[in-house]
Every structure is written in C-alpha cells, then in structure tokens.
C-alpha cells in the first residue's frame, strides 16, 4: 500500500527553509513502497526548499506528488527546468570602487 505524507501537517502550509526537506528525507528512509507527497493546503514553497525536494526525488524514484497548487506546481516546474538546463549566470557589470580612506568614501556616499 502506498505511503501518504501530508506535507501541511508534516512541515507547514508555508515552507521556506531548505532544511525542511530533511523531514521528508527522514520519513522516506528505508521505505520501499511508493510514497505520495500530498501538498493539499500548502500555499508557499521557497525555491531553496523545492531545490532540496528535487534532490530527495532524485534519491527516491518512488515519489509522486499530489494536490499541488498552481504556485507549488509552478515552483517545482521552475526548479526541474533549471536543474535540467545549463545555468547562465548574469555577470555583475557594475564596477568595483575602492576607497582607502574615510574622506573619499564619504564623498562617494554623498552621491547615493
């Protein structure tokens, strides 16, 4: 029989920290059956948590997701897409300003 984890009860309806995925990882330890992660009632998942959830899903191929809201589904899709395409970093183009004394720093800060 499939094991079902109600994420809103196990973690929260508002999931922010990456470390929350460890709670799911611990629940899956040694489980051989299929597992359903039920996201009913979950209103927010952070990108960090979702990224770690993706890792958990890579480790345990027997996971299915259920009752994901549009927001949760969209975050999972974003992370999945990001993990399967080459990442392009946007280079910070703004120059580095170096100040060796407080006076020159103060003059610069007066402009912002």
């Amino acid at each position, binding site marked *: 029989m499939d094991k079902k984890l109600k994420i809103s009860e196990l973690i929260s309806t508002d999931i922010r920290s990456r470390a929350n995925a460890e709670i799911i990882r611990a629940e899956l330890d040694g489980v051989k059956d299929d597992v359903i992660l039920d996201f009913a009632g979950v209103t*927010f998942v952070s990108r960090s*948590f979702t990224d770690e959830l993706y890792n958990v899903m890579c480790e345990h191929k027997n996971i299915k997701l259920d009752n994901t809201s549009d927001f949760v589904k969209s*975050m999972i899709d974003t992370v999945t897409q*990001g993990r399967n395409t080459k990442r392009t970093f946007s280079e*910070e183009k703004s120059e580095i300003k*170096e100040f060796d004394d407080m006076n020159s*720093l103060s003059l610069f*800060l*007066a*402009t912002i």
Partner: protein
Amino acid sequence: MEDVVKIPNVDRDERIGSAFNHLFQVIQHTDKYNVGNLFWDFSDTSFFHPFFLAPLVIYKQSCKRSIECTNKPSRVVGYLDLVHFDDPLSIKECDDFKAVLESYMSKTYIPVCRFDLCKSNIDDLQTILQRVIKSQSKADYRITTPLSHLLGELIDNINEHSYGKHGYIFSQYFKKENCINLVIADDGITIFGSYVRSGKYLDEINNNEVEALKLANEGKSTKNLPGAENRGYGISSSKKMLVDGLHGSFFMLSGGAFHRYDSNGASFIKLPDSINWNGTIILMKIPVNVPVDFDYSKYTK
C-alpha cells in the same frame, strides 16, 4: 582613560548614502578606541533612520566591547527602549514568540530581534514576522509572495552559509513613503569567509572581499552539488525581484565590502581597512504597492 563617540542625528529624510556614511563613521571611531571606557554620546540625536539604527544596535552587540550610552535626550529614550536598542528582543525556541511578536501588529515597527540560527522554529518565526509586517503596512495582498521569498531566501542563506550563532531582524514601516524598511543580519563569517572556508572560487576572488560579494550576487554558491549549479539563487533573485520588480532598494554589507543596488544604479565598494562589519547585513526598502506588471515567476528562474 575615556573616549567619547558622538552619535549623529540621522533623519529619515536624509539621503540613504548619508545614513551609511554616519554608520561607517561611528564604526570607525568606535573601533579606533580599543582601550578604556567607551561612551556613545546621544545628546545630538532626535531621530534615527532605520538603516542607521538597526546596524548600530547589531554592531553594538557584535563588537564585544562595553559601550555605555550617555546623554540620551528624553525624546529618544522611549523610542530606543521600544526598539530594544540596548538588548535585542531574544527569540528562543521555547519562547512563546508568536504572542510576543503579535503584540506589534498595531505598531509600525518590529524591534530588533535576535534569533538562534539553525533552529527548527525559523520558518514559524518568518511566518509570524511576515504577518505582523503585512498588518502594520496594510500591504497589497500581492506583496505576500515576494515578501515570503525575500524573508525565506535571505534567512535561509544566513542559516546555511554564515556559520554564525545569531540572526537579527528589524522592520520599520513609513506611511509617508509607503514602504517597509527591512534589515536582516547575522554574526557569522562574512561572505568572503564563507568562500574561503569552502575553498571554492578562490582564484576568482583573489583574496578580495568585494570580489567575493560580487560573486555571491552573481549566484556562485559554495554549496552546489557535484556536477550541478543548483544553488546560489537566494541573493541574486531576491535583489532583482526587489529592485527591478518592486522598485525598491537593496544594500548589503559584509566584512569590508559594501554593495548597493537601487533605481539610481549599482556599485560594489571596498571599504577602507579601518571599517569592518562582523558578519553580513542586508538592508531593504520594500514598497508596499506592487506594480501592476510585477510577475513573481520572472525572478525564480
């Protein structure tokens, strides 16, 4: 031997650069006097810009010196007590912090709060902080998701990377500007220290704290999985969402490096050697009204 550092009056209408200028002056002067008794003289003060006040409280906690605050005018004594200037509000895992923080629902500020890093209540703390901030500012409901993102990613970042003992948070809503001034900080090893600790990107950083800050803002993480570039979205996505999407302002100070990104431009600044911030602090001006064309999904990719 006694030394006195004058605390300036930093009005909320002052330019943002002025608030940082005053802050750096105080840090420099305080660090210079490292023997004997040190006094911060508040006789000139009547108002504190939030981006001057919150760093000052956190600096006072982290500089490990005994600083006596003197000559506080009666007009500021009450306010300094309310924001927990001398002793940040401690959020412990066992405390009923929800009830404590909910008492600020009808105020315009959340006092400087200190919380233990790497504790299991950190999501609950964010949830209640967010509820209080939204209630205070009567914010557009559309601010909910971006605010969750900013709090979630930035607090998770300090939890995962700072190796600090404490995190700090402070918020002040200004009705006139209709924006939330939010400060998040840690007492950890700085961004430069985090790269050094991991041994990653050291050639690119070249022993330079500003290069480290720049790399972190580009999304180069010290904790990517082997063969993946899955992490490092926290700072870069939060900053772009806040400035490009919500038209707010973003400032970051870590060790001897400072970064500013707002509608007037971006710059990475190496501070004089005489100024050093213990840890990392992020200061954000978050407009309460979300632009009609704001699209959250643009900033999570």
